[in-house]
């Protein structure tokens, strides 16, 4: 055996992208979000903030999906259901006069986690495309349930009296305050997901994605880890739903159509799978492109569609792959 046969433990790390790439892109992304309001102050501030807030909310939703899709190969086609659960938690409580953000948030997260636990436990019995479709089924059931809730507006949805109250005060009312609250949530989710992915738990999750039988043969029960990840992802997406309701001050079944779930998948793949910040970039690219293109022509989808195709054909690994900043 030669001299590198037993490297020192410090050198045992898996090869990684250089630190600049690893941390550079996410730092840039967050810096851009943090500074955007300053730039926005020059123009239509409320509009730009609202647009970027929407981007960040969808980034949270997409990132939560990336956690199970990119790292666990669990393609959920019903992920928008959690957006709906989070939003309806706000809407339903508010319509009964409970406007405390804390209570609403707890309800949103709790309900999302519970829904994820129950449907996940059932869905996990299946694999691959069957998993895709059974999650769709649960998403659709919830969607139809929401449309039949006449007391809460049915298909028309319901308007919130105001944004959720923090400590009894309307602290989230201002566009700036809300923007930074959402940015805080995004950062929090990102750091949490980063940590989870690198942790022991995340490693098992990734392993189960590559070869579940092998994982069993070394003593893991992948089911429990995958279910755990599913619940976590659902809960985070519930947070996104909570924020979405507050941003639009409106709640509607339209938040949880299958098209929305599909868009979330598209956003994740577009940005670059299994990188977390890829989901943020994907959300930004998707929503901003939509906004910009639709400003030019009514037929903007005839430009947007082919763009997506080109990304797939010529940029493996989504936008991140195109930037060459992909790793992991």
């Amino acid at each position, binding site marked *: 055996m030669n001299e*590198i046969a037993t*490297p020192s433990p410090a050198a045992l790390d898996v*090869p990684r992208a250089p630190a600049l790439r690893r941390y550079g892109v996410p730092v840039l992304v967050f810096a851009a979000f943090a500074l955007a309001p300053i730039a926005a102050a020059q123009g239509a501030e409320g509009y730009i903030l609202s647009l970027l807030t929407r981007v960040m909310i969808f980034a949270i939703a997409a990132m939560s999906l990336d956690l199970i899709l990119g790292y666990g190969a669990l393609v959920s086609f019903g992920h928008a259901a959690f957006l709906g659960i989070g939003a309806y938690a706000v809407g339903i409580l508010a319509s009964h006069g409970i406007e405390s953000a804390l209570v609403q948030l707890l309800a949103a997260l709790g309900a999302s986690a519970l829904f994820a636990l129950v449907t996940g436990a059932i869905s996990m019995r299946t694999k691959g495309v069957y998993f895709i479709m059974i999650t769709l089924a649960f998403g659709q059931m919830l969607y139809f349930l929401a449309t039949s809730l006449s007391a809460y507006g049915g298909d028309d949805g319901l308007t919130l009296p105001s944004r959720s109250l923090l400590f009894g005060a309307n602290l989230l009312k201002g566009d700036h305050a809300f923007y930074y609250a959402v940015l805080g949530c995004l950062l929090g989710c990102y750091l949490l997901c980063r940590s989870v992915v690198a942790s*022991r738990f995340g490693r098992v999750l*990734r392993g189960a994605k*590559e070869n579940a039988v092998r994982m069993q*043969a070394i*003593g893991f029960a992948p089911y429990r880890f995958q279910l755990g990840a599913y619940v976590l992802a659902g809960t985070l997406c519930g947070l996104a739903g909570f924020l979405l309701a507050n941003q639009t001050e409106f709640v509607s079944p339209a938040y949880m159509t299958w098209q929305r779930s599909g868009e979330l998948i598209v956003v994740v793949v577009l940005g670059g799978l299994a990188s977390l910040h890829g989901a943020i970039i994907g959300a930004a690219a998707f929503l901003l492109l939509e906004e910009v293109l639709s400003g030019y022509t009514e037929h903007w989808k005839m430009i947007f569609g082919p763009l997506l195709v080109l990304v797939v054909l010529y940029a493996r690994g989504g936008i991140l792959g195109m930037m060459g900043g992909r790793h992991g």
Partner: protein
Amino acid sequence: MADAILRLEGLRKAYGALKVTDDVTLDVRPGELHAIIGPNGAGKTTLIHQVSGLAASDSGRILFDSADVTRLTMAQRVHRGLARSFQITSILPGFSALENVALAVQARSGSSFRLFGDASRERGLNEEAMSYLAQVGLGHRAIIPSGQLSHGEKRGLELAIALATRPMLLLLDEPLAGTGHEESERVVETLRGLKGRYTIVLIEHDMNAVFSLADRVSVLVYGRVIATGRPDEVRANPEVRAAYLGEEAA
């Protein structure tokens, strides 16, 4: 025999009308290297699947370390000390060789429901994993993504992963398949080194390896054990010659 570490009692498995394993009764003694040979399609791999828990048995019992493990999941059996390798290489191709092994170490050391802390920097896991890689001569390949290893190296990795679960009993399904002379000699040496420290059930078609390593040999034909005994006994058995060895071994 009371001192058997693994005892199979009347194990059966059928796929449709095909009885793949048929009333297999077998004892494996602690510390021995027990080879199972037999024609292609005799049910050897299936038997390993049954013992390791990958395939459910139709009937019969599996006693391991004096406990009935017939109904346990694969993961539970691993935790009790039963490890296996796969005939068709089964690794995590996107993970480095080291991480493949480190995961196996992780599986039995502490909870894996930890959401924080970078697992790939856990010294304890890495150092132990490294030692298993070194045992199979892959120390210098630790940080290569395992999908890029050569066929023979993958077979070695497969073995290292099994070792990392710190098994009492190793089930090895054709560890030599596809390895060249040089590499297969190395694997045989490794096995020789493991012998005595672990109880090993070895499936192989390489008769040189089998007869030089095994303490005892069982012969499986059409799902039934037709002979068990010391290598020279089995080699001389005319039934075995007719069904499996042919004249090559003569």
